[in-house]
């Protein structure tokens, strides 16, 4: 089972990724953008956490992300350990227009560094870049209706420098994204994929006693879909745009 090279041209492995962050920072939107290249109000009631998968093609290998998108409400935070357990990577998201969300993000970073698998790859992501006036104008506004995107009050409240300095201090990957425009979204996941050490991909996932990680070749695995029974489109589409 461990030998995957026989069936696939490129080695392929799954990577468990968990999204953490304050409610409404855009976790689910980021995942939706990454998995379906779409942005829409979240119609899916998330109980506990939503599960989605997406592949990411790297030059040398394929990474299949198994994504746990944790629920938004504050009290569900007690459940988070259940989801970040054994995660090899994490996306800690804050909302650039809301400083308190960065505080929360720092908390999650500390929590992961202390409680999650050692060696977990953490990316700090400031989302809703499209709401910040000062960002580069070349942001491709993919949605035609950009009207409500630039409200006057919603301006950047967390500076790039501040977040970046913190990320460097804690050795985190750092990106500023917009789930709405798609800016930098796939870059985050690619960067995580690249940062996952080869070694942690080969064998079974961290801490597993006996079993082995079935390597799945690219493209055929379309059955991995959202946890919720109804109303979900198949989540696993073509490989991401990386």
């Amino acid at each position: 089972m461990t030998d995957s090279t026989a069936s696939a041209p490129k080695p392929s492995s799954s990577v468990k990724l968990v999204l953490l962050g304050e409610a409404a920072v855009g976790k689910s939107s980021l995942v939706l953008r990454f998995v379906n290249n779409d942005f829409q109000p979240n119609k899916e009631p998330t109980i506990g956490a939503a599960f989605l998968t997406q592949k990411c093609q790297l030059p040398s290998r394929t990474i299949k992300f198994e994504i746990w998108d944790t629920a938004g409400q504050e009290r569900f935070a007690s459940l988070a350990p259940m989801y970040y357990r054994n995660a090899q990577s994490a996306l800690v998201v804050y909302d650039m227009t809301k400083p308190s969300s960065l505080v929360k993000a720092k908390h999650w970073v500390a929590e992961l560094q202390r409680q999650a698998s050692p060696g977990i790859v953490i990316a700090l992501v400031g989302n809703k870049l499209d709401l910040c006036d000062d960002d580069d104008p070349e942001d491709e506004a993919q949605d035609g209706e950009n009207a409500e995107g630039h409200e006057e009050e919603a301006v950047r409240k967390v500076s790039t420098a501040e977040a970046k300095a913190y990320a460097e201090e804690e050795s985190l990957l750092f990106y500023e994204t917009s789930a709405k425009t798609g800016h930098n979204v796939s870059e985050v996941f690619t960067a995580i994929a690249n940062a996952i050490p080869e070694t942690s991909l080969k064998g079974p996932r961290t801490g597993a006693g006996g079993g082995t990680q079935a390597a799945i070749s690219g493209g055929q695995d379309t059955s991995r879909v959202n946890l919720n029974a109804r109303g979900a489109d198949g989540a696993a589409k073509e490989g991401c745009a990386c």
Partner: protein
Amino acid sequence: MFLSNLVQKAQQYIDPAVLPASLVTATTTKPSKSVLFQQQFHLPSNQNPLYEITAELTLPTRKASSSKSPSSKQQQRWGPNDWDKGADGKGTHYVGQLHLSEQYLCFSTVNSSFVSTASTSASSAFTGRTHGTGTAGNGFTLPLCAVRRVERLHTQSYMFALSITTWNGFDPGTDTKPGAPAPPKLTIQLEGSRQQCERFCDGLKRGLRQGIREVENMRAVAAECYSEYFMYSDFDGPSPTTKADGVTPRHLPDTGLGSIFKYPGNSRKLRDRSKMRLWHEYMRENGRNTTLVRQPDFHRLIRVGLPNLLRGEMWELTSGSLYLRLQKPKLYGETLKKHEGEESLAIDEIEKDLNRSLPEYAGFQSEDGIGRLRRVLTAYSWTNVDVGYCQAMNIVVAALLIYLSETQAFYVLSILCDRLLPGYYSTTMYGTLLDQKVFESLVEKTMPVLWEHLSGNDVQLSVVSLPWFLSLYINSMPLIFAFRVLDVFFLEGPKVLFQVGLAILRVNGEELLDATDDGAFISVLKSYFARLGESAHPKSENPKHRAITNFQALMVVAFKEFDGITQHTISEQRSKHKAAVLENIESFAKRTSIRNLGPESKKLSTNDLGFLYDRFYTILYERQQRAQVLQADEDRKRKASRQRATEIVTGVHGNGAPEMGRVGLGPSTTEMDYDAFREFLAGVAKWAVTDSPSSPTSANDPSAHKSANGYFHTLRAKPSQPSSPWGIGPEPAEHEFLRRLFKRWDKEVKSSLTLQDVVAGLAPIKGGRDIMGNISYFFELYDNDNDGKVDREGILRMSEALLFLSRRGVEGGGLLSPSPSSASISEHEEGKRRETKDEQFLSAVSSFIRRCFEYADPDHASRKAEMEANGVAQQVDLLGLSNGDESAGSDQLAASSSSTGDVKDDSVLSRPSTNAFGQVQTKARHVAANAALDPSSPVHITLPTFRMLVLADEPLESFFDSGFANSFHLADAPLPSSTITSPTFLGGSSSTASLPNIPDIPAMSPGGSSGVVGGAGAGVVPPGKGLRGMLDNIVTDGMRVAAEVRRRMDEAQKELDKGASTRGTEDDDDDDGDEGGRDLLEGAEADAGEGRRGTGVSREPSLLDQPLVEEPKQGSSKEEVEKSTMFER
């Protein structure tokens, strides 16, 4: 974590025999009989089992003539005469237990006993296998208000038999207007001694009389049940609404959104009409809604799935929410009205989820549906603010609303959250996590191979199963199947969720064994859920087998194969895992909380923050426990007159508020009021402990109660003084300084502190180690109007606070800063050093006052009139007061300043302060000439002045440099007494007692102590007590200090008398132990005398008070107790 340790330890140490019974039950985990009774019959928490008796229920079978023949339908009307008499031996017989509570008469074939003599395990027998009947078994749960008549049957036998006629509150109809069939008479034969029977009947009569008042209520409640409408017509006849007979159609009850937007599923395929016919028949024979009798067919009809129009009503009935609605029929409407227009966090959160609650159902694409959902969730969030709103409730309520009116849904939601899914939706969701643990352990037990496979592949089962439980399968299975699970769930209880969950895994076992990661695991189950409606045996030759759906097969596995999973199993597993789950949550909550305490918190170490967190929540938790115990005692007393106490005492636990305040359970409060704040400080700073505890000794000290019955009697005599108890920790002092500190920490002026407030308040003191910062911090405490000035009054209060803070000694200079606990009794060197330091401090404060006035700036004379009080006299008093009494209080200060006459002498003030070596530290200055002392000219000092004065004086400087900060004992140097909050001390060596070398206090009145004003905080100062408080752990040194204090005071007095002026040094002969002792005694007496005379403020003894001093010696507790009681009156 430590909170749970604490509870465990407390349990070890508490001797149940000596504590108020309610306290014991509050800490036990076994539910009381009342709770078991309520659970069995799904009754509201105000019902208690009053009487019970073995009985045989006989139900009539219908006469052959009126058997179901569709041809006779038009004329059918059911009246009492259509029934065979049950008593003649025909009919169906059930033997079981008949129970009477305040408002209900219940009968169940599941034999369990709730009488006081029965063991709790006998009472909980019903949690075993119920064979599909649910916990209440066959029988009935009859509100007494639904009983129309009870007759004593005089049958041929000598037996005691009752015939009960029930009544739904509706007329059975007239000749022109058909009514609903009358429910059958119930014949009950009581089996017991004549006396028992009579007693039961007397109780019944009383209850029935009371019940009359409820009849109107019941009519209104029943009118909302579909069965009331349904039963008025013959099933196959035209529907009553469509009848064109001129009679106003009966009110059609609201049967949920389904009646408007269609019920899910194909009703033909669900065979809805056949089911309705069967129910019609069943209810004709067995009554409806409140009067329904449960026979085996009832349970069978539920198992096959409820029909759309009756589903809601049956959910209400089987969950018991109907009885809750009967109890408080207006609660829903009134709650909404009361909070109309208000806002809350819960409401914001609800609003976000309204559009994603079963969005695929048409009803929730409409304003009507969304509005109902909003109102039900909002109303519940107001009735239970601790839970508020939790995601997943939206889905559950949305599902309920398809079959229930919004009012009904509200009560079902209450039953769900409060009884069926305890803790699921709480702020920590501990119930959810706990049941996931329970589920995992059941999987491990029943499917070890699968379990091995899962853990081998590192798949965590609960990430998959959690949504099943949290949203009752509604979001996992197609709706029609989820509703069928709900049908059984409401009847049989939470164990159903586990049985179904286990069955799902069992049925998919093979495929799951191939899944090696979360993704594969999830997709196996998802595709299974999608196929629930398909044939389980599609390839079978037998068409009957082919007709069996996956869902039916699942139900068979759930209830046959996992029949052994009973409510008892679940309870057992829950209590097994509870501690671990709570610990996990609490350590997570603690980490989270500590990381989110704001920037100020960075000044404190993680250890200190952890320490503060623990103390903060321990105090809140303990205070709530105590309040609850007191409340329970009150309740018990109130009820005791009506019922035998033994039946009631156990009623505390589980009556809606089992354990409160524990972080893991979702703390019911996260803020500390002033009293809690005092209690908190008393655990971290010695000065915050009172010198005059209101309760003489610890209630939990076994030696105390064994050796001193007298004491224990006082405890018993006042078991429930609501304001008294300070728990097992030291009793806090009351002092103006504490109030100022509280006010300063209470930044948002809400009269309560969050943990963040406490941390932010302490951080500048503890964290900065910055003398300038501490000086201005202190100054600002007294700068009432923030104008950078502290007036005469403030100066005096400052000085007084300094004395208050130092009355147990000033702690660790910056240089050594030894852990105070390690500066132990044995170290004489340390003791000596401390002693002299304390003295220095006393003199420093006195010279501080003097110099304050020397350097004070005059105000622009404007408030002369207000400053009539004699400033100098104040100062004199102040010294006398503060030095003489360790707990000098502001009230007394104020009182003394107005009462002291015209003594005008500044000699005390001009006494130079000395340091330990007898050197004169500062020049004596005459202050007589200082204009600042003229009371008629208001003065103030500014921060720079204050700073200068502090820095110019070594003891004060050192106090602000380190002493003040060190007086707060956090993690690195905890107060030995702070551990008092831990019940380890309950057994304790700590017994207060133990100061054998304090000589007896002679009861003689000292002469020259008129300048002494009685103890603050509490007028009564038991001398031994006050001293012990003051001495902390260095008894002898402390005595010397006190002696010194006293001597100075006397001297000051003498000098006042003499009118003498300055004198030289005289304070350095203090190592004369004997003399010190004598003076000490005088002083102490003086205190006591004054105290008695002075204020009359005395607090009730606390239940569990534990004095601060922790001396390892034992044995003198008796003496202690006697002494204490002396001052008790």
